[in-house]
């Protein structure tokens, strides 16, 4: 293979000559230390290379070797429970090999080559197969069955298929194609910047239930959908994404820590092996893949990290799983893009970001979706993508926020004033939105009941009304409002404090099933409608609002999932106590 020569080094950007055989996005080895890099611009034989490791000590004259392959990830059994850096190097193995700090030029494969996996075939000799067909399975963890698929580009008849224990590099099947026999192994590769194919994209129609009340009830995201969480620092982006990783009913979770804090990854690493998945009862880590390219790790690998993550996610989607990917934070990805662009001396767009930022953001989010997978048996997979955005000063006019809002369907607007009041999740209920409401209507009608849509609409209308009333009250004082309006304010407060507010760190409050969410909102609504009636009959407002049952409504969040019948009692108490005040007013 031809060798290039470095002529320039500027931070993560290296320029080399003699690269006329290289292709765009090929992986190259840079310098005597063989640092990993990727070709990102070609002009004649001059290649610009972004280097995924620190470039200190690198200088002109050193060689550059082209590997001839684009930046790719390894796919196969062993992905689950792994923790990788931005270019899929296993951080646990790195620690074993070089210690607590990450040094340079480390070359460790992403997947264990020695481990044997028990492979059970699901096809027979003589079967016709095409890309995406499942040829067999491996029980990867107690909750994940890893399906081995015919790789794209292979069509033919099964010549031989094996059963038993194999490493990922051993042949498990042979397929006779027009161009000869092809050996299939469990280890496959896929270039990260290319979307994995599917048969067709379908509109999302099932919610990704997260156990987070404001999200599931007000601004749901669909399985296969996209959402973003912009907000200033400290407003709760990371906690929301962690809550998603913990409690959402996805079958596979890919968590990408992109240029953020090391301790937040440690937090996940320490917690997930301990926490139980509410659906499977198994430990959460058994369905999770972690990508950690923290803020102190090389910038270029940060740029790659979200692609590494999403390619692994697509691979599981192709097996027919519902996968959720969280990226914290996409702003750091965009900044990495900006830094490289600046060093390439490209024409800067807004805030110095390259003009192609919106295109890149769109390409990334467009890889989400509910799909009909390649291969037989008509399986469906879904990949939901959630991105945190960290705009400077929380300012939503930030180019990364704007580029993101153009593509995603759900917007959870985090605001610092809510966080200062410790109202968490600090999602502003007035300007957040979900464009999936219509797609999901049918599902909610079936699962939650006919009245759900109306309950949701009413609750949101009350909150809207509260905002208007508060404006008026600011000018004239609360006492000047009618009792009906004051009741609206009370109910709005109850919706905010007793329903929307949710403490991620409280063992019960951290997760609320949809059934419980329904009951919680229902008691608030019941109280409101009965109180409205009572007011009409002339009941004293103060007396209404000091009914003891309100305390129980406030504490409903602590009712455990196995005791939802407690809500019956609360409902009865509302009725009973209302009757009593009614009685009082009649006799008065």
């Amino acid at each position: 293979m031809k060798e290039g020569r470095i002529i320039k080094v500027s931070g993560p950007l290296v320029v080399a000559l003699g690269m006329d055989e290289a292709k765009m996005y090929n992986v190259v080895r840079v310098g005597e230390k063989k640092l990993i890099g990727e070709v990102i611009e070609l002009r004649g034989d001059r290649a610009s290379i972004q280097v995924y490791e620190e470039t200190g000590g690198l200088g002109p004259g050193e060689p550059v070797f082209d590997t001839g392959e684009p930046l790719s990830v390894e796919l196969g059994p062993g992905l689950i429970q792994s923790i990788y850096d931005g270019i899929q190097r296993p951080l646990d193995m790195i620690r074993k090999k070089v210690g607590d700090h990450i040094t340079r030029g480390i070359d460790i494969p992403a997947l264990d080559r020695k481990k044997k996996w028990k492979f059970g075939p699901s096809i027979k000799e003589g079967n016709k197969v095409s890309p995406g067909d499942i040829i067999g399975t491996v029980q990867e963890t107690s909750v994940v069955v890893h399906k081995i698929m015919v790789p794209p580009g292979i069509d033919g008849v099964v010549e031989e298929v094996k059963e038993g224990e194999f490493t990922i590099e051993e042949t498990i099947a042979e397929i006779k194609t027009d161009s000869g026999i092809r050996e299939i192994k469990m280890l496959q590769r896929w270039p990260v910047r290319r979307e994995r194919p599917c048969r067709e994209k379908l509109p999302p129609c099932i919610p990704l239930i997260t156990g987070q009340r404001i999200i599931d009830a007000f601004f749901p995201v669909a399985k296969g959908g996209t959402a973003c969480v912009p907000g200033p620092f400290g407003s709760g982006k990371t906690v929301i994404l962690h809550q998603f990783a913990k409690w959402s009913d996805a079958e596979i979770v890919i968590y990408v820590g992109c240029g953020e804090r090391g301790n937040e990854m440690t937090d996940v690493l320490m917690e997930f092996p301990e926490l139980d998945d509410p659906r499977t009862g198994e430990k959460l880590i058994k369905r999770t893949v972690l990508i950690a390219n923290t803020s102190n790790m090389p910038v270029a690998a940060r740029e790659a990290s979200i692609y590494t993550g999403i390619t692994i996610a697509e691979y599981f989607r192709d097996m027919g799983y519902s996968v959720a990917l969280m990226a914290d934070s996409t702003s750091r990805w965009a900044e990495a893009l900006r830094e490289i662009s600046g060093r390439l001396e490209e024409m800067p767009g807004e805030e110095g970001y390259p003009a192609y930022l919106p295109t890149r953001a769109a390409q990334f989010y467009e890889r989400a979706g509910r799909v009909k997978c390649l291969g037989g048996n008509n399986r469906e997979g879904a990949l939901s993508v959630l991105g945190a955005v960290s705009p400077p000063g929380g300012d939503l006019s930030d180019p990364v926020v704007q580029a993101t809002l153009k593509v995603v369907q759900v917007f959870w607007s985090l605001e610092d004033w809510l966080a200062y009041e410790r109202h968490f999740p600090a999602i502003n209920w007035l300007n957040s939105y979900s464009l999936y409401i219509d797609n999901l209507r049918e599902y909610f009608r079936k699962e939650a009941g006919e009245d759900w849509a109306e309950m949701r609409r009413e609750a949101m209308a009350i909150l809207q009304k509260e905002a208007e009333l508060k404006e008026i009250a600011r000018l004239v004082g609360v006492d000047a409002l009618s009792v009906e309006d004051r009741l609206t304010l009370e109910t709005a407060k109850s919706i905010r404090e007793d329903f929307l507010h949710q403490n991620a760190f409280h063992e019960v409050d951290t997760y609320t099933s949809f059934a419980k969410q329904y009951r919680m909102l229902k008691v608030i609504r019941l109280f409101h409608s009965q109180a409205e009636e009572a007011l009409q009959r002339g009941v004293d407002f103060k007396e209404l609002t000091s009914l003891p049952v309100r305390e129980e409504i406030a504490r409903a969040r602590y009712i455990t999932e196995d005791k939802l019948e407690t809500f019956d009692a609360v409902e009865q108490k509302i009725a009973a106590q209302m009757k009593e005040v009614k009685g009082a007013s009649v006799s008065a």
Partner: protein
Amino acid sequence: MAKEYLTIREIVGPLVLVEEVSGATYDELVELELPDGEIRRGKVLEVDEDKALVQLFEGSSGVDVFGSRVRFLGKGIELSVSMDLLGRVFDGLGRPIDGGPRILPEKRLDINGTPINPYARDYPSEFIQTGISAIDGLNTLVRGQKLPIFSGAGLPHPQIAAQIARQAKVLGEEEEFAVVFGAMGITFEESDYFISDFRRTGAIDRAALFINLADDPAIERLATPRMAFTAAEYLAFDKGMHVLVILSDMTNYCEALREVSAARKEVPGRRGYPGYLYTDLASMYERAGRIKGRQGSITLMTILTMPEDDKTHPIPDLTGYITEGQIILSRQIHKKGIYPPIDVLPSLSRLKDKGIGEGKTREDHSDVFNQLFAAYARGKEAQELAVILGEAALSETDKLFFTFADRFELEYVQQGEDEDRTIAETLNLGWSLLRMLPAAELKRIRPEFIEKYLKEDAH
């Protein structure tokens, strides 16, 4: 012997362009020898064929194009470390300025360090008692955390930082403790305040100080915090000490970085700061923390003054995105004569949840903390409303919260510069304030704690 070059082509601000160089590498250390023999240090920012762009650490005044010699040293800039660092004062580039001898190095470390593998980190969870209620009770600091103080010109951040350095302890433990202090462009008075305070309390014997003053070359500041972290890493991870790193004032550091960026004519980000400011700060701050299986720890307290007291200015903003919370000082509270003027509402410790509670502080801590916050926020809101509508327009309960907020600032937040409150004192103080509110309003506290702590008068 390194090759010498006499081929300086131009000098622009802190940048020197050297031509006809061979073998220069990115980020390596450069020595510039002036005609009079004086040595200046710098590092390579970019190599392009035979041209090397060098950023000086000691300013370019006196450097000339024709007479100065340039040597490329083939390694990064280093700090000599040994246990003798403790008790010593250095300049911003790590040279002794206390009249003492040079450090006999146990080893020399590249000041850039290498990133901690996230897999190797241990989660910080040991409560540090600072003796300051607004921190211990509401923004609890834990060992290995990075918590900045967002201050403003003229606010008493040196006093607070010094008080923390003096009082910080982990309960029930006698472990080796050290302070590394990095000063970037602060005044002589401020620096002297720290040094005398360390002397007064004897802390100086377990402190290493790196001092770059306001009248020292601005560009030297770019190395100073890295010197401090390198010393801290050595003490913490090689020697098993618990190190508190105090950096003041990071705003000056960021301005120096902006200066270099402008001299390179880079595309400026917000307010002229370079787009890589986040990464630059993060790669330093992430050197703090704990590592599995190692004894020591690095806890980081950086101080920065917010230009125009603006929290959305890029320096505090990017800092807040990196650190694990922030302590925000308020000029308004300062004007009321309250020390420490900590504005608790926007302040935050992200790591508190794992550092408080039974066995760490006390079982009721989390609930008391939530309730105090909520009550203070409500009181503040009532105070704002009263400004618009008059106090008379407030409901009886809101009036109670109004008074609560005042008392909270005067009794809970306010304390003496030498007042070292135990965590029990802080928590009990919280309860004594909550007692002025109706029990029904204490929604964030579990009934069993109300039972146990609220009714007890004798605390």
